[in-house]
């Protein structure tokens, strides 16, 4: 039915869009190509051989901290260094994320406390720590506070079997002593978890049918702790602990968080928690007062109002920016290079780059690691947002 009229090309939006996009694309391709050409030319002119052959060369430096992957000076290769770097980045990020989430939620909730003093203390915390550069905070804690004020290993601060000194935090690590007993214990724990899970489902069904509610969480929690302990004893206490002991100069045995890791973890936690606290505050405040009033008007208790009305709505606002904060924390862990904790930037883009001179490959690989983490995060966020949108329809 439509009259197919010929439109002059320059007035046809489709043709124009295609032309603009072609031009843009060719500019980008040309830019990338000439960048590549210049780079290759420069590399040749400077006699730099770019390649991955150095991966298998032995790394001529030591890495002191690698909890899972083994590092042996004089045997381990560069590519192992790369993986150790990733491992340490992930390790400090997880430690930081857990601590910052806990601290951030506490500070955020305290910020909204009806107690004026507590609320102002939380406000001061947030405003001080998020407005000072993280790098400065890391260096401050490490060089100005912990390093000079923590004692030498001999006079470590003792908290149970934990020892804190200027070299770091030493702590006991569990080792499996009696393997058959341990397997038995693990099995009974699994069974117990399964049983409690069934119980929770039953309780929920019963609640829906009869309206009678059981304190499922407390029952399960205490049952788990109590039974877990009893089973542990029955199975013959299958775990032993490697407890750090003071040698002549330093502690032997147990696990150690070296001081740079400790400072980094501490500063990342304190810094990120200030941002998470703000997210938590904004999230809770975003739930309009009308919602709470409506819930009270229906006769719901304060606790049920918070649990069933406020928290579900607040979490939708809190979770997305908090996940971005997790990603920020992970990226910020790269500042470890300032205190010498051996994560990927310090050990790969720092030491390995200086040793081999392979800037192109090394920087590209470092960036690739972070891009992967960031893509994973945004994929998760997209999934989460879509799920929320679906449940809002």
């Amino acid at each position, binding site marked *: 039915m439509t009259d197919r009229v010929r439109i002059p090309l320059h007035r046809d939006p489709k043709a124009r869009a295609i032309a603009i996009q072609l031009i843009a694309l060719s500019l*980008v391709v040309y830019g990338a190509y000439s960048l590549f050409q210049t*780079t290759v030319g420069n590399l040749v002119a400077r006699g730099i051989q770019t390649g991955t052959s150095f991966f298998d060369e032995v790394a001529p430096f030591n890495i002191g901290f690698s909890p899972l992957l083994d590092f042996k000076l004089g045997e381990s290769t560069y590519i192992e260094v790369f993986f150790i770097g990733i491992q340490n980045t992930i390790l400090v990020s997880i430690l930081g994320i857990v601590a910052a989430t806990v601290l951030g939620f506490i500070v955020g909730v305290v910020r909204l406390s009806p107690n*004026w*003093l507590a609320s102002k203390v939380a406000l001061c915390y947030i*405003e001080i720590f*998020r407005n000072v550069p993280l790098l*400065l905070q890391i*260096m401050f804690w490490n060089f100005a506070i912990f390093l000079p004020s923590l004692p030498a290993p001999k006079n470590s601060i003792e908290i149970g079997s934990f020892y804190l000194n200027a070299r770091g935090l030493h702590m006991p690590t569990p080792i499996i002593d009696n393997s058959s007993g341990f397997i038995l214990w693990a099995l009974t724990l699994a069974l117990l978890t399964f049983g409690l899970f069934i119980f929770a489902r039953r309780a929920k069904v019963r609640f829906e049918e009869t309206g009678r509610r059981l304190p499922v969480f407390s029952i399960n929690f205490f049952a788990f702790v109590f039974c877990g302990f009893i089973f542990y004893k029955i199975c013959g206490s299958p775990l032993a602990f490697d407890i750090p002991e003071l040698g002549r100069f330093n502690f032997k045995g147990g696990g150690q968080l070296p001081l740079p890791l400790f400072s980094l973890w501490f500063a990342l936690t304190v810094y990120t928690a200030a941002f998470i606290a703000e997210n938590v505050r904004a999230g809770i405040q975003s739930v309009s007062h009308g919602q709470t009033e409506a819930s009270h008007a229906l006769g719901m208790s304060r606790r049920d109002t918070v649990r069933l009305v406020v928290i579900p709505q607040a979490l939708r606002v809190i979770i997305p920016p908090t996940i971005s904060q997790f990603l920020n924390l992970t990226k910020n862990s*790269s500042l470890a290079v300032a205190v010498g904790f051996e994560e990927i930037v310090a050990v790969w883009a720092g030491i390995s780059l200086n040793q081999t001179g392979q800037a192109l490959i090394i920087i590209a690989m470092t960036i690739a690691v972070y*891009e992967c983490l960031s893509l994973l995060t945004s994929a998760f966020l997209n999934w989460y947002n879509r799920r929320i949108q679906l449940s809002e329809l």
Partner: protein
Amino acid sequence: MIDDLKTFTTLPDRAPPGSEIGLIAWIRQNLFGSAGSSITTLILVFLFLMYLPPFVEWALINANWVGNERSICDANKAGACWAFIGVRMDQILFGLYFGANPDQVWRPVTIFIIFFTLLIPLMIDKTPRKDILGILLLLVFPALFYVLIYGGVFGIPVADTTQWGGFLLTFALAFIGILFALPIGILLALGRRSEMPVIRAICVTYIEFWRGTPLITILFMASVMLPLFFPAGVDFDKVVRAMIGITLFQSAYTAEAVRGGLSAIPKGQYEAAMALGLGYWKRTIFIILPQGLKISIPAIVNTFIALFKDTSLVSIIGLLDLLNMAQTASRSLEWNGYDIEGYLFAGFIFWMFCFGMSRYSQNLERKLDTDRRN
């Protein structure tokens, strides 16, 4: 007229009952509102009494405020050594060149005075002709900065960029970063909202690439690899390399801030502009950007705060910014061991600016919010 028509009279206002007002009532409500609240208050007061007085004594009462040598501070270890900051002030604020040439310090001082006389009226709501001030700040001020700080004209001695340092360098990096990032970011934001898939893909890739990587790797890349990317003979010194890295990084964040503002503009604005016959660019320039940028100012200020803090990372690639300058000073032979003071001073300057800016952005946000509601 009907006889029994009643006349409306206002009852006089009465004061509320005494338990609702006054200091005592306030304390009871806000500090001892419940058992938990009372305990919290007591614990907090106890902690304040424990830790605040010793800190105040160290930082203020017992502090060594004046003096030119460390012997004064060494003699009184119970107080902070602010004398050290006083001695090294020029260096920490303006870098090595101006620290070494006290007769030239007027140059950075003048530039900061000019900067703040331009900036402060811009932040005040009622100032007329903000557009002129803005143009002066974004276009004329950078030229003035170059003339006064770099020198080389009008008989002003040259202070090479390698000699820039301290707060001056921090400021220069952040200002240049936002100055160049803003136009790039606006174009990227428009591109990301474009209906053309290729343009959108290019912009998304660019934005997400820079946002996915920590600034420190970008600075490493800028300082190690930048010379490889340019034809032989083209070379920049370290400061310019850092500026390039920061600009690329910042443009991605600015783009996201602007995009947020653009997406807050109601669809009706586009439609009304189209119905009047305005084409894409006229629509964008006269209708969309003026509104979108205004809405995104708080977000842009927030990314700028982040950038301002992040400039401290250049100390890792060896530039003497505020943080590195303070640290270097406190590790110098004469003042070795007073790093707490050095960090606290640098931290305080950073905090002052970041806190001020965040307050400003919060106020602006609140104002925009009420504007939109009316």
